[in-house]
């Protein structure tokens, strides 16, 4: 179902989301063509592939999937005279909790994505590309398949596209409910028909050894859409949008305890946290205050709304000096969020107000990671489950005084010791919630003493419940 039409906020700059919720818009190719669709593709075919790579480098576009890696640099790893086939994969797994942007592009503007993909494939000389879409978007998969057929019929896909001599096929590949398929090497394994076990880097950097052991570019939906706009505007002009090293727009997805949640496409760094939450999202619910904000998808470290943050700022003479920053004044771009100890991640901003218990919130997050660990690495497989068990009993009123310490030590022993970044993704919430909200955890933990000899706190404190739980599992 299409969501209710929502008009862009005056502070938005709609580039990638230009056609999202646009009155009279539909995802078919005629609507897109009437609006100048595929003109940028024609322009792109007038350029050499290496020129497009150059423009993308000049644009300073950073990946929108989570890590914020330079797109031009990634593409630069593909040798222009590569002998093996090169593949391109669009990461449409959109599964990082709190993130809801690719969904709207896929459902409402599939041809923009295709145009961006065709240009990107031409730039890196990929003749076969896949859109890896999460299994829970069945309608999205059908819309993309229809769009691919339409593009074929008009000569934008297939052999000798628009007389350029360039051939390309794009196929949709559906996932089946596993979060780890969003991680690019897990995604590749999954696309090869296996369990989505991430591969170790090095040597398996996709751009070197990716799909079928060939060089492969994996980019997020939003990143690939941006390529179309870079070709249209030119890299230098694109780089003027936003801030240096944080160029272009960013789609921020706000959910949780605000009056008006939703998505907002803004120039990178155009608003502060306070402006986003109060001006664009209408502030907290009546009678409430903001307590905690996770700024970049559930893996990003949580920020405390009543904290001040110390950041290093470059002075006119080039030296660095400390500056104090209130929560409301944090600028929402890649570098500023990194400076306050979190990350812009996937753009998913999850807000919690003072009615929320942080132990409960962390327990919800821990349950997600415990469920989604692929199970290859012991610290992640076991640790994510232990962390969930600990917060589960804390939230249930069976915590013991040692729990926050145990929790921290488990998290500390996962981060940095795993094959993929899921290890950090599950450790960071635990570490940051404990650090930022020690009082919530101490309060929950203080309730009980662990009697000697008990194997688990639950067993000691509520034997009947422990027996019932053991039976369930």
């Amino acid at each position, binding site marked *: *179902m299409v969501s209710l039409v929502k008009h862009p906020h005056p502070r938005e700059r709609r580039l990638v989301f230009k056609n999202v919720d646009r009155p009279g818009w539909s995802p078919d190719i005629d609507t897109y063509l009437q609006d100048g669709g595929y003109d940028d593709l024609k322009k792109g075919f007038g350029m050499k592939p290496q020129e497009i790579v150059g423009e993308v480098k000049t644009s300073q576009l950073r990946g929108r999937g989570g890590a914020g890696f330079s797109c031009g640099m990634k593409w630069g790893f593909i040798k222009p005279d590569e002998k093996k086939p090169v593949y391109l994969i669009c990461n449409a797994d959109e599964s990082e909790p709190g993130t809801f942007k690719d969904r709207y592009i896929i459902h409402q503007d599939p041809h923009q994505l295709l145009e961006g993909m065709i240009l990107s494939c031409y730039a890196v000389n990929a003749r076969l590309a896949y859109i890896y879409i999460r*299994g829970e978007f069945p309608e999205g998969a059908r819309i993309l398949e229809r769009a691919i057929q339409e593009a074929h019929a008009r000569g934008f896909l297939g052999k000798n596209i628009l007389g350029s001599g360039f051939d390309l096929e794009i196929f949709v590949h*559906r*996932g089946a409910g596993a979060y780890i398929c969003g991680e690019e090497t897990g995604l590749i394994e999954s696309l090869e028909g296996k369990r989505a076990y991430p591969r170790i880097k090095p040597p398996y950097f996709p751009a070197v050894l990716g799909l079928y052991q060939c060089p492969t570019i994996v980019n997020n939906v939003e990143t690939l859409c941006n390529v179309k706009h870079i070709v249209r505007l030119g890299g230098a002009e694109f780089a003027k949008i936003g801030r240096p090293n944080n160029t272009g727009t960013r789609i921020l997805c706000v959910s949780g305890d605000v009056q008006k949640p939703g998505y907002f496409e803004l120039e990178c760094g155009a608003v502060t946290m306070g402006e986003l939450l109060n001006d664009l999202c209408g502030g907290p619910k009546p009678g409430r205050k903001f307590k905690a904000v996770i700024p970049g998808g559930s893996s990003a470290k949580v920020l405390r709304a009543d904290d001040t943050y110390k950041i290093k700022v470059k002075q006119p003479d080039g030296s660095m000096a400390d500056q104090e920053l209130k929560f409301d004044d944090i600028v929402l771009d890649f570098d500023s969020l990194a400076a306050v100890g979190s990350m812009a991640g996937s753009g998913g901003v999850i807000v919690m107000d003072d009615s929320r218990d942080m132990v409960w919130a962390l327990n919800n997050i821990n349950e997600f990671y415990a469920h989604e660990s692929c199970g290859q690495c012991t610290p992640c497989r076991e640790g994510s489950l232990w962390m969930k068990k600990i917060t589960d009993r804390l939230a249930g009123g069976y915590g013991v005084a040692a729990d926050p310490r145990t929790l921290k030590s488990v998290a500390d022993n996962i981060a940095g010791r795993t094959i993929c970044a899921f290890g950090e993704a599950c450790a960071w919430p635990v570490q940051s919630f404990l650090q930022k909200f020690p009082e919530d955890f101490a309060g929950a933990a203080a309730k009980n003493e662990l009697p000697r000899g008990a194997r688990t706190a639950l067993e000691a404190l509520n034997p009947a419940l422990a027996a019932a739980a053991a039976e369930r599992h």
Partner: protein
Amino acid sequence: MSAAAEEIPTLPSVPAELEARIDEAITHYPPDFKRSATLPLLHLLQEHFGFLGAGTEEWVAHKLGLEPVNVYEVITFYPMFRRAPAGRHHIRVCRTLSCALGGSYELMRQLCELAKIDRSHATHHAPVSNAADGKFSIEFVECLASCGTAPVCMVDDDFYENVATKEAAAQILQRYE
């Protein structure tokens, strides 16, 4: 395999029309890498039969030139594949943080009540609970990428946003026969 696994009903024979779609899906991948079609084939079979019956491993393996275990390990890894029939309509409720903040646990409780489903036996490895009358089945799933319109759920392939009241939940269920 556990005793439960042995009770899986057998995969019925695959009709020609479905096999034609399966053969077409295989062409989406380079001829040397037919294994890539494992997930698409499993999706097609599950969509058609409602679940992956006993013998699915062998059938898909034969089609793609694999060992049955290659298919088995895929089926057991991905949460969307199931080995037992679900209800005529399958409900997925998002469990993750933004939806939980918006009341998804309450939504789950209401849906179970309305659809007469007992979820008390749901576990990590058997997350789906069926109604006794076979009409609906239900499970919690993780973030469905629509957190701004929490709480959200799916019934079969249909997606529903802002399902924040029992009336809204009841209206959704009424649409299904």
